[in-house]
């Protein structure tokens, strides 16, 4: 039932979300549009209150400006019931808005960060000062076997497949960030961070390191290559030839 | 450069003397500092069962002796306050000196204890437990020494019959330092 309420509310804000974000940053994962819709919802809610507040603000400044005619201001304590209402009613309405935002945010968060749907495949992401190594399971679809393909600064995945990632760091904190997936996860040395994503669009986009990691933090970009099944199979058949990406 | 006290210092809209408010503020900030340190230690200790083995090498006799020394010195601080309340600056000063002697004894015992531990290879970088051990006890010891120094200054003033209200204030600080040790002792020496 919660999912039904979530889907209903998401449906309302999805088109605006597309306009706000997707027009500039493609939607390339299964949960990207959830995040876009949430951002759109928050934009509408806070935008509404901001417009109200600004309207009141500028109106009051204009209406009660000193006209130089010697007239006096009113003596208002703010405890008058009829005036206090102007504060307490919006106060209550904002709480309602917050409840909706909290509900939607938790649903989105749960889907991306608390759940781990069954994986079609797993990739290992190794971050270090200042580069990325990506270990892909080869044709046997198992990591840590002889046919694994390790690339440097280029991650190859197949559209429509659900991936688990194992994120590691060799030294300091890094962060695996893929804007078109709307995905981020800090990498912590000494731990294996687990998460998931499902690419939904073929193409090639930026991978960023989104946690300060030293002098080379700014040259730690990589690329994610989302391929159609045919392209992916063709790429995999090359094996670990030592042919590294151009970055 | 001597200076007369501002009128502000002598007012008390709350009824609590300003000096006492100030000491409580200082203690408040220290509680949060030690609290943060000890909370971090406890979190680590829970997550590292092997620390129990490391902790077994602390010497409960030394720790116990220091606990006794500090508690006794706190008693002396109470006696100093009692004397100050009755206007006897010279007696208050003597009891403050005794308290200080307790602090000095504490520091000496600690110095001996640490020398023995370091000579056995239990240094601050040996492992996480010993890092916390030396850091927490070390910061505490610094507070003991600082307290002693301030106490000596107040004792000198009390001997001359001046600022007797400060005897109580440094006593409050000293009790706090004592209480921190009451927390450290079980955490570092008893939990094994």
């Amino acid at each position, binding site marked *: 039932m919660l999912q039904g309420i979530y889907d209903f509310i998401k449906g309302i804000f999805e088109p605006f979300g597309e306009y706000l974000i997707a027009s500039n940053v493609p939607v390339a994962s299964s949960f990207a549009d*959830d*995040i876009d819709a949430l951002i759109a919802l928050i934009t509408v809610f806070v*935008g509404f*209150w901001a417009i109200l507040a*600004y309207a009141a*603000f500028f109106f*009051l*400044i204009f209406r*009660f400006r*000193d006209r130089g005619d010697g007239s*006096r*201001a*009113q003596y*208002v*304590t*703010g*405890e008058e019931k009829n005036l206090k209402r*102007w*504060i307490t009613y*919006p*106060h209550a309405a904002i709480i309602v808005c*917050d409840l909706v*935002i*909290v509900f939607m*945010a938790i649903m*989105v*968060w749960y889907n991306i*960060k608390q759940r781990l749907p069954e994986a079609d495949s797993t990739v290992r992401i190794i971050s270090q000062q200042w580069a990325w190594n990506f270990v892909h399971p080869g044709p046997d679809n198992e990591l840590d076997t002889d046919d694994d393909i390790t690339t440097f600064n280029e991650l190859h995945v197949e559209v429509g497949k659900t991936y688990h990632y194992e994120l590691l760091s060799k030294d*300091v*904190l890094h962060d695996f960030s893929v*804007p078109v997936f709307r995905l*981020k*996860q800090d990498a*912590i040395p000494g*731990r294996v961070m687990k998460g998931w994503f499902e690419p939904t669009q073929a193409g090639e986009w930026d991978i960023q390191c989104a*946690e300060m990691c*030293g002098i080379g*933090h700014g040259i730690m*970009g990589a690329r994610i290559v989302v391929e159609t099944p045919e392209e992916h199979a063709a790429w995999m058949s090359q094996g670990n030839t030592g042919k590294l990406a151009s970055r | *450069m001597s200076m*007369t006290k*501002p*009128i*502000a*210092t002598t007012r008390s*809209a*709350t009824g609590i003397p*300003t000096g006492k*408010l*100030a000491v409580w*503020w200082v203690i408040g900030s220290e509680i*949060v*500092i030690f*609290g943060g340190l000890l909370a971090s230690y406890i979190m680590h200790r829970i997550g*590292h069962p092997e620390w129990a083995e490391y902790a077994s090498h602390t010497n409960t006799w030394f720790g116990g002796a220091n606990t006794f020394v500090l508690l006794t010195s706190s008693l002396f601080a109470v006696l100093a306050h009692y004397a100050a309340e009755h206007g006897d600056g010279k007696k208050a000063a003597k009891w403050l000196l005794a308290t200080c002697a307790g602090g000095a004894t504490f520091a000496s015992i600690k110095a001996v204890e640490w020398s023995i531990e370091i000579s056995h290879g239990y240094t601050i*970088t040996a492992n*996480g437990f010993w*890092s916390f051990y030396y*850091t927490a006890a070390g*910061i505490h010891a610094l507070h003991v020494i600082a307290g002693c120094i301030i106490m000596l200054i107040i004792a000198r003033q009390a001997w001359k019959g001046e600022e007797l209200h400060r005897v109580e204030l440094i006593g409050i600080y000293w009790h706090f330092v004592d209480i921190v040790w009451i927390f450290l002792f079980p955490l570092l020496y008893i939990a094994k």
Partner: protein
Amino acid sequence: MAEAGTAVETHGAHGAHDHGHHEQSFLSKYIFSTDHKIIGLQYMFTGIVMALIGGYMSYAFRMQLAFPGESVPGYGVVSQGEYNSLVTNHGTIMIFWVAMPVLIAAFGNFLIPLMIGADDMVFPRINRLSYQIFLISAIILIASFFVPGGGFGGAWTAYPPLSANAEYNLTPLGSTLWLVAVALEFVAFLLGGINFITTLMNSRAPGMKMHDIPMVLWMIVIASVLFMASVGPLIAGAVMLFMDQVVGTGYFDPNRGGDPILWQHLFWFFGHPEVYVVLLPAMGIVADIITTFSRKKLFNYKLILYTAFATGIISFFVWAHHQFVAGIDPRMANVFTITTLIISIPIAEMLFLYIATLYGGRIRLATPMLWALSFIAEFLIGGITGIFLGASGSDIYFHDTYFVLAHFHYTFFPIAIIGFFAGITYWFPKMFGRMLNERLGKIHFWGTIISFNFIFIPLFVLGTAGQHRRIYNFQNFPDLAGLQDLRVLATTALLVMLAFQAVFLFNFVVSMFKGKPAGKNPWQSNTLEWTADSPPPHGNWPEGLPNCYRGPYEYSVPGREEDYWPQDVPPDTAPAE
């Protein structure tokens, strides 16, 4: 003569207490003074100098971003490492050596005794000591830029293992000096806090009850308490980080059983209340200005006070919203989303109460009022954009992007910069006995505010496009390289804004010596500081300290001849002005 120095020099008016020396040397009057007004001004001038340094840093790194690789006039080429140091120290300086000293220590020190009718702080020598420690901390921080290896570049958040290990950060000396400087600054403010709370609680004028205290003082003291209650764990963390850096312990080293995330918790447990530590004094300054310039009481003083307390208390329960994707238990994220959205409620209410104060007023748009009103308008944007970050789901996308950066500049800039300009344009007459030039004030205001928005709205757009933080050159990222026009726009706006500050500096310096004499109460305000001379002499009221008969905001009281009623005027007497 109307310099701050006369505050301690007037010979004739030494009735209240005699220091046993009448001629104070320059050193004891200005450098080693224990007078709260001088100490306040010392903090203020130090803060202004540090703001210029921090501003210079933003100039250098924004020039690098707009014109990557090119030599920056007045700096040179910004290397990768230098870029990181510039952004790190810009942030560190602006929070710890500008916002805090100016809002809390400068205005707090200057105003608290004056506004409660006292002759000084309770512990003047501790007050002096706190400034001296503060100054030393500033010097140590600046020294860190000039040591071999350069200044620390691990971001103002200083996460280990990067910050703990010189092999990773490549700035061994700079990292440690940075850490020591920050720790000393904390000690300075803990010492300063002793005076704020004891003086406000105990040294009030006879008759001044709790609800007669001007809002700015409440806010400064609540902020002091917040600071004291939150900084302890970070001091503990700083000791641990220092030990890791210098002694070789492994508190935060995962290879030795340590935990990098522990630092994050210790840092943000302080870091989040810290933003309210600086926000509340700024809001307090705004409260005292909007009441004076709309001739109205604060709308529901008690409710505003409760929202301030509520904000302070809740602020201890929201910290991990900075760590949503940092590797905390994902279930905890939901808790912190809820608490973070909850804290938005009292703050929104506070803003609404301030806007409501304008209702029924007679609003004069003098320069201080322009700044106070613009605080509300700009902070509103900062506040609402925080919602996107406090909601865990959307934070996954926005974390560590320029959206965060724009959000906190729309909060911090109103707090530190607008708050400062509001306070200084309002209290300058009391501090220096002269008026600032109104026309220059308005030119400075509009130039600053308009350009400020043109700096940071492009950054919201860039953040929404996915641009991440602390990157020295976006041409390395194909998906982001094309947005260079927005970066150039932001940098150009920054250059304009920096240029307009020259108007303020000129106005400030010239008016201090040549401004129109101010008299005691140029704004016709109620609070007690306006009953002392401008500037007040040593001891503030040599003729005798005032009593308090009413609240601070009794403006436009029906039936009275004047539209203000100073706190020190006995009842049923016409106001003395």
